[in-house]
């Protein structure tokens, strides 16, 4: 009899990118809620109603000595005797940090699942990257790249991921500034207090996070029976259960308690918590995240996608 679960190799990022594009095409352009980014200092496509660096016209003002000559709007200046400088509206781009858990525990796929958790996480993250890039947001990967604003953000992210052979187990969160968004796709299988401990700085810094729990159905349902030896792919620990079926109820209760604690903690901070099962479609989670980022009301979720 074959084992229920299997360890998968790390997903090829380029392949994940293709799938992510596909997913992203299903979702309408993401308009990031601008409410939270009014005061963001960095220009974006959301108009800040004041002069600054931007692309859209804001005002003409008289040229002040010392300014660069290239800034003079010669067409306007030609109409009268003054020299005018064309000011643009200060546009603020929203910075969204993306991170997929690269830990070995993600490299798992059970018989009932269609893809491994790692694959699903990357697909989701890259799909979001595509969405956000397309709508002009700045995307970043902690420890991998600073926030970048480009139309092909997903591709660049993917190529950067390719060049980084072993991603860090935990993201470097120190550079994430306030009012950023962070999307974390992970299985959150570490002890809840550990997870909360490394997420706490984000909360303190006012970062709004979206947690996506990638769950394999075998992990949730525990379909094992008989004499079974379980092995942790992360630590290599082994555990032998004489009759695994007797553990199922206890396990499911603990598993659900962990998720509940995590989601309620996230909800308390206004974060979204989304569960995506690897036997379901990735776009379900994508729609949910989209909604969460678009609409505050959806933050009350934490339900399953």
């Amino acid at each position, binding site marked *: 009899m074959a084992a229920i679960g299997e360890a998968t190799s790390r997903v090829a990022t380029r392949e994940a990118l293709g799938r992510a594009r596909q997913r992203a095409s299903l979702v309408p352009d993401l308009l990031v809620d601008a409410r939270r980014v009014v005061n963001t200092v960095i220009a974006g496509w959301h108009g800040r109603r004041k002069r600054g660096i931007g692309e859209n016209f804001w005002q003409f003002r008289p040229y002040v000595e010392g300014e660069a000559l290239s800034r003079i709007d010669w067409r306007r200046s030609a109409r009268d005797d003054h020299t005018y400088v064309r000011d643009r509206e200060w546009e603020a781009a929203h910075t969204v940090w993306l991170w997929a858990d690269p830990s070995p525990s993600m490299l798992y796929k059970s018989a009932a699942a269609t893809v491994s958790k790692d694959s699903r996480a990357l697909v989701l993250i890259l799909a979001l990257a595509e969405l956000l890039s397309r709508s002009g947001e700045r995307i970043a990967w902690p420890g991998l790249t600073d926030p970048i604003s480009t139309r092909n953000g997903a591709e660049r992210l993917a190529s950067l991921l390719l060049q980084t052979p072993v991603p860090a187990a935990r993201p470097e969160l120190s550079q994430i500034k306030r009012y950023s968004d962070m999307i974390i796709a992970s299985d959150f299988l570490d002890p809840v207090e550990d997870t909360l401990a490394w997420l706490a700085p984000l909360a303190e810094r006012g970062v709004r996070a979206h947690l996506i729990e990638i769950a394999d159905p075998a992990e949730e349902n525990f379909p094992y029976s008989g004499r079974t030896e379980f092995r*942790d792919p992360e630590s290599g620990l082994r555990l032998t259960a004489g009759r695994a079926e007797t553990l199922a109820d206890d396990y499911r209760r603990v598993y659900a308690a962990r998720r509940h604690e995590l989601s309620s903690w996230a909800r308390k901070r206004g974060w979204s918590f989304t569960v995506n099962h690897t036997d379901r479609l990735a776009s379900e989670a994508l729609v949910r995240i989209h909604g969460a980022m678009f609409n505050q009301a959806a933050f009350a979720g934490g339900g399953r996608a």
Partner: protein
Amino acid sequence: MTWLPLSFGAPMVLAGLVVLPVIWWLLRMTPPKPQMEIFPPLRILASVLKREETPHQSPWWLTLLRLVMATLIILALADPVLNPRERMAAGGGATAILMDNGWASASDWQVRVATAERLIADAEASGVPVILAFSAEEANEPAGPFDAAAARDRLNAAAPRPVPVDRVAAAERIASALEGLPAPGLALLTDGLAADEDEAVWQIFADSGIGRLIWAQPDQPTMLGLTGGDNLADVFAVTAIRPQSDTAPRDVTVGAYDDRGRRLADAAISFATGEMEARGEIRVPFELRNDFSSLSIDGEMHAAATRVLDESRRRRRVALISQAEGDQAQPLLSPLHYINRALEPYADIVSASSPDLAEAIPELIEQGPAVIVMADVGTLPSAARRAVIDWVEGGGTLVRFAGSRLAAAENDPDLLPVRLRLGERALGGTLSWTEPQAVSEFPPSGPFADLSPPSEVTVTRQVLAEPSADIVDRTWANLADGTPLVTGDRRGDGTLVLFHVTPEATWSNLPISGSFVEMLRRIVQISRNQAVVDASGEERRASLPPYRMISANGTLVPPSPDARPLEISGSTQSVTLRNPPGLYGTDDGVIAHNLLGPDSQLAAIDVPQTELPVTRIAYAFDEQQDLRGPLLAAAVALMILDSLIVLWMGGLLRRRPRLAGRSAGVAVFVLAVGSVLAPGTGLAQFDDARPGDDEAIAAISETRIAYVITGDSSIDSISRAGIAGLSRFLTDKTALEPGQPSGVDIETDELSFYPLIYWPVDEATQMPSDEALSRIDAYMQQGGTVLFDTRDQYGAGLFDGAASPGTMRLREILSGMNVPPLEPVPDDHVLTKTFYILHEFPGRYAGGPLWVEAMGDGEADPERPVRQGDGVTPIMITANDFAGAWAEDANRRPMLPTVPSDPMQREFAMRAGVNIMMYMLTGNYKSDQVHVPAILERLGQ
């Protein structure tokens, strides 16, 4: 190991058995291998799985299985041997085997061969040549040295012989073969009985430098031998002996058989404790005892347990006495000439040397004749008369012939069976009105009852018996007028016979008829031998050819090519290979040549006193079996079973509920036990009733005529009505009362119940299948007859060559069958005469011939009304539509008109049917009736 016939080649390996408890402990401790699963949320699971995982114990039966497996392997490694035997390598430069194959070896010869084979195998293993000699073989038999294969060939070619052993000759052969071989080992496979020359045998072996002696003898010789079978006056005494070592009380049964092997009587013989010889008696009538031809001890399968008897079939000695000395000169007038000629082939004739009866009779009686024939002796001298009376009382048969002297002598009731009237009676002749009398049928009570009466014999003169009440009982032959011709009576144990005519052809022509020979021979046959034919006298046949031999296992067989004629010389002949025991002689008389004499002893043989190392072995089959292979095979089988169990436990059924696994285990167990026990449990109620039995019983409880159902309802109804009409006609006119017509489907129905099947051939119906045609073919081959009717006599073409559709169909049908050559019914065929005299066989149509199997080359004999021929034709073909002519409705009115419309044609059609049916049922019986005149003529009417 004395409690088990088991030994080990490497017993040290058995010490490995001490690790079994360790293995048991290990097996108990080690759980089965778990299912490996990768499980990322292990830490969550770990928080759930608080208790320590206890070692999962494998089931006790699995542990037991593995322990058994380990035990088997250890045992197999120890090289076990079941029923081990010692190696009997005799050592030295050669192995010499002296094997007894005399009569005493026959009963367990196979065991002896097996023992010798072991010796040969051991010699082969030692690489020494084998010298093999048998003690009951020809003296020129080579003794070797042989290699093992040749020795085995010789051993398998050897067989026990029904003769005593000759160990000296065999020992000499071995000694000569052993010359030059250093310190050979000698194996003596004895039959357990001592022989006279055993000392000489030991001496020969002592001189030939034997290095070692292997001695084999049966545990306890228990063979019995028959030393005597004597037909005494009132009983038949049987004497049996047994070996001296056999002292326990013993009861055996001896059967007596006639010359055709039928068991006539048996005797119980009881050996008391320590008794070596015992006697049994058979009390049956004398006539039955005379038929004894051999005796055999039940359950003993060797030559000494069978004894042939020549008592009844031995040539008897017949003494001839005549008072007329001068008669010898003219043989044809000699009173003894015809007796002599008649008895010569069957008996030893002795004659008196002296014509003086007072001397001649004691001399002759001394020679122990079975029969004394007196030709016309009147009065005997008183001494001689006394001797004759005693001899007769003791069992002799006295045959007297009448003559002028007897007619003149006084009546002597002791020596005459009946009172005689003085003088003789003349029948016929010139002065007599009477005719010479013929001999009538022999009375059924006499000894001549089964002889055919001599119709050509006439008697002209005779002596007459005084009529008395018991004259009829004493009469052995009568004349046509009822006067006795031969009378006989018992005197003590003997018999008196009187021929009322002379032994020469003066009073009657009886002596020159064949019946005379038969009658004398019969008298001699029923006589009893009075003494053993000792060979001292001049014997007519110095050597007697072998007639029936006693085989090694005690049965009577035809002589083998090796048997030589028995030379009768002065001393008793010993039983040798050239003269094996049995009967010697011819059909007319035999001499028994038996293995054991009346004073034979059976003594057990003893190991000779010798300084050589002697190994005693017992005769036994080589039952040594190497158990390593079976044990290893069992271990492998258990290993496979174990693997299956582990696979099953490991997950094949793991998603099933626990209960299923348990029941599967039970099922496996039941299957295993069942497969062991299955051969013994095959009892089932057996009901031999089969579907169709009722139809079969109905079909055979009456004679029924069958017709083939063609599928065309109009044809079938006509067939049925036709057969029914014929059946009614048969019932009216003949003794045959057929049952209801039976329609048969040739595709399915059983055909063998019906003597005749009428088959209306119709081209419109479906062609029968090949299977049906082969069934019809088999039916015809096995004695059935099919009457094909194409019903198209007038439908055939105008020209000879044109065949009608029905004929075409018939040809098609017959093309697949073995059809004999056919011919139209010839005039002298029995079919024309079986009931009615018929010349043609019309049906609805007239003129068509009835074809039957050709009778071959039987030439029509103008003298004979019927041609001879065996068997019944399997096929008849007509075109005349018989059924159409036979068909009647319920009121017995014809259903179809005849063509041409002639009432007589219908009558003739019926008669043709009757003849056919009679022919079916009686075959060629009617053709045999042509012999009736000759039979009647022979019956004399």
